[in-house]
Structure formats: C-alpha cells, structure tokens
C-alpha cells in the first residue's frame, strides 16, 4: 500500500512543484487581504513574526507607490530544527509573502523552493520543501477565494 501511495504522490508531484513563483490576485481590497492573509497563516500553524511596510519606507524617502508589505512567518520548532540541520539555509527564513495593491485588487506572491532543490537533491529536505510549498499554496488560495 505504501508503495502505491508513494507512486501516487510521485505522479502528482509535478503539479505541486511545477511553479517557480506562487502568485494570486484577489478582489479583496488591500486591508481586507492583509487581514485574511494573517488569519490564513495562523490557520496553518505558523506565526507572523513581522510585517515589513515597504511602502512606508519608500514614500518617506520621496518615492510614489501603492501599498506594499512583506509578511514574515514561520514555526519556531521548524526553524530551530532547520538551523541545526541546514544552518546555511537560515538566510531564507522566516518565510515571506509579498502583498501589494494593484488598483482595487491585491496581489500576493511567494517563492517556491525550486531554486534550492537542486542543491539538496539527496537530502530529507525535499519533503520539507514539498510541505512548505503546499502550505504556501493553500494560504494564498485561502486569500484568493475569500469573500
């Protein structure tokens, strides 16, 4: 049975890892999308560690921009384990989702781990990458489909 399940997951995996960037557009306004995003992150057992207000820094420096934030999030146990096993990957964490207004709508994006996978082809990290990518997809989709 395990063999069949593994085969099934292997067959489905191109669907799950084919994209380099995960991007969604939501018809929610920026403040609404921000609220739903932070809730969705919590729903997946992650904690928001910080929200970087990119637009504030830009406008204070005299550059025009619509609202633009970067939301950092993670799981403390996962990060501690990661920094013990793969300390060189610490700069990529906590994970982040960029969120910016485009007119009345909002765009959110996050990166996959496609750029890191080739460097860890034989390690147990691949399944961890799968898990994180799947979580990110679901978080983004929760925002995309929210009313």
């Amino acid at each position, binding site marked *: 049975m395990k063999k069949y399940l593994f085969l*099934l997951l292997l067959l489905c995996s191109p669907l799950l890892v084919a994209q380099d960037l995960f991007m969604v557009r939501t018809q929610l306004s920026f403040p609404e999308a921000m609220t739903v995003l932070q809730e969705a992150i919590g729903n997946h057992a992650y904690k928001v560690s910080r929200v970087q207000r990119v637009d504030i820094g830009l406008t204070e420096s005299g*550059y025009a921009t619509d609202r633009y934030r970067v939301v950092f999030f993670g799981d403390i146990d996962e990060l501690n384990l990661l920094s013990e096993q793969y300390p060189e990957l610490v700069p990529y*964490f906590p994970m982040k989702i960029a969120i910016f207004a485009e007119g009345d709508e909002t765009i959110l994006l996050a990166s996959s781990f496609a750029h890191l996978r080739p460097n860890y082809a034989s390690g147990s990290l691949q399944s961890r990458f799968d898990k994180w990518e799947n979580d990110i997809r679901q978080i*983004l989709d929760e925002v995309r489909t929210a009313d």
Partner: protein
Amino acid sequence: MFMQCLKLLIPGVILASGGFALAAPASDGDTLYQQNCAVCHGAHGDGGVGVPLNLPDFLAVASDDYLRKTLHEGRPGRVMPAFPALDEQAVDAIIGHIRSWSEKPAPVYSDQALQGNAEHGSTLFATHCAACHGVHGQGGAGTGVTFSRPRESPVMAPALNNPGFQHSVSDAMLKATLLAGREGTPMPAVGSLGLNDQDANDLVAWIRELKVEDERPARGALDPIIQFESSYSLEETLENLKQAVVGRNFRIIRVQYFQEGLTSEGEEDPARVMLYFCNFSFLDEALAIDPRVGLFLPCRITLVDTGHGVQVMTINPKNLSRLFNNAELDKACQEMHDIYAEIMEDATL
C-alpha cells in the same frame, strides 16, 4: 482497496494544489484563465504585471496559433512563463476565453516568409521603432502595465528579439500588427508614419534578424547563499557590518534576533542575529524593473555565532532571481550580489 484510496486521495491532491495549473476541467476556459493568467493579465485581460490582452487591435491580429505557442513557450527572460503543465485541451479553453472578449473571428495566417529588404527595414526600425522596442528589439523596461506605481509608459513594449516571440509570431501576423497599430498603446499603424506595404515587409524582414541568446545559468549551478566567516566576535562583526552598509548608502532598518516574533520575548537565541537595511533609490529602481521584488526585501544579512566563529550569510540574489524569468532583474541581482559580497567582505576581514 487501492482504487478506493485513489478516489479519496485524488480530489485532496488537486485541492492541495491550491487552484493552480490544471485544477479546473479543461472545458472551463474562464476558470483556467483565472487560475493561470489573471494574476498577471488581470481578471478581464486589462493587464497588470503582464501586458493587457483585451485590446481590440491585439485580438484582431493575434492568431490562435500565436496564443498557443506563447502559452507553450512563454517569453524567456521577459516574465511570461511557459505553461508546460497545460494540455492542448486546457490551452484551447483558455484561448477560447480570451477570444470571448472580441466579436471578431480569430485571424488565420500563412506560415510563409515574407520577402523584404532587411537592410532598409533596419533603417526604418531605427527611425520608427527603436525608441520603444529598443535598438536591438530588446523591448521596453519593466513589466506589462502596472497600477501599483507610476510608470513612464502605459504599457511595456514587447521584446521583438525574444525567442518565444520570434517562434510564436508569423511574418503575416507581424505585418498585420504593423499595418493596424494598436490603439490604447503607443504603437501606431505604420501607414500613419508615411510607410507603405513594402516598408512593412522590410520591417518584418529586419525584425526576423533580431536574435538574443538565453545566457542564464542552469538550475543548481549557483550557490544558494553568500557566506563569509568572521574572525571578530558577533558584536564586533555586527558593528563592522553596520559601518559597511552605511558606507554604501544603505539605511539600517533594524537589528533583530532570528527567532524574534516567533518565540516569547527574552527567549530568543542571542547567537543568531539579523541586520536589515535598505537603499530606497535602489529599491525604487528594482520595483520599476519588476514589482514582484518584494521577495528580496528588505536587504538582510544573518549572523550566526557557532561557538567556533561567526558565520555571516545572506541569500544569493542571483539564485532567487532565476524564479522570476526576468533578464533585467537578473542584472540588478548581479549588482546586489556584488554589493552584498563587498559589505560582508569589508565586515569580516
């Protein structure tokens, strides 16, 4: 038993894909468009990170074959990705949805090459086209149109030398575009410039001469991080970094523990620290190149005291940039890579 498990698992896996490629029935062009295209091109094709698709002049001259090849091959180095996971049925459904924005039927063109004088076309191109499309046909800067920040042009001029474009467009479609122009963009009909039918053929002949090579490195060929080892203590290294950062016209945003915000205050590991900094002029330029650069923000260097020394690390922007399919961004990330390396080297020597 196995089939029962399949029935239970398959919907879950599709759901887990989060509504991305192939999650909808191929017959539902609208849904497939919303899942795969709308994030960049807008829900109604008005554009965004991607160029607008619902322009009447574009739909009047774009053949189904052009749209099909564009979906298959994308535009290497110009943001638009290829969609290899979409099968023919899904591609046709998306094209059908895009066609629903126009009452005109899809044009069909001959594959035959047009006969033109490329040398004369080169002169015409330099005079009438290069200002928007670039001297080498490399296209305008930035991405599509955008509604998130001020832009110099209402729409990015396409890269005519892009291999994805060159392979997707027929000579006849190129000529039809030149003759019709594109209302709603700066692209005029060549007739309004005093050019005739043969001039259009000559321009097509020259555009076919425009070529670019994809020089991006293969996946896995780049280091994921930039790393230096410091011979100073963590505190000394941090101060050195701050001086090096400020010395390169960056502003320090904050210093925080790696675990800050994820664990209770006071329980963070003081041996892992992050320095955040930014140069807003550089950031503004980067956002003009690609509004998705938030995934690089803010500039950050992480310091880890291992007990045997201090490791100074940051992401390799060149490695992350490859996810964006944007050759312009690759160049900016090369610059950022070099700045990171200089700062870290200064701080650790």
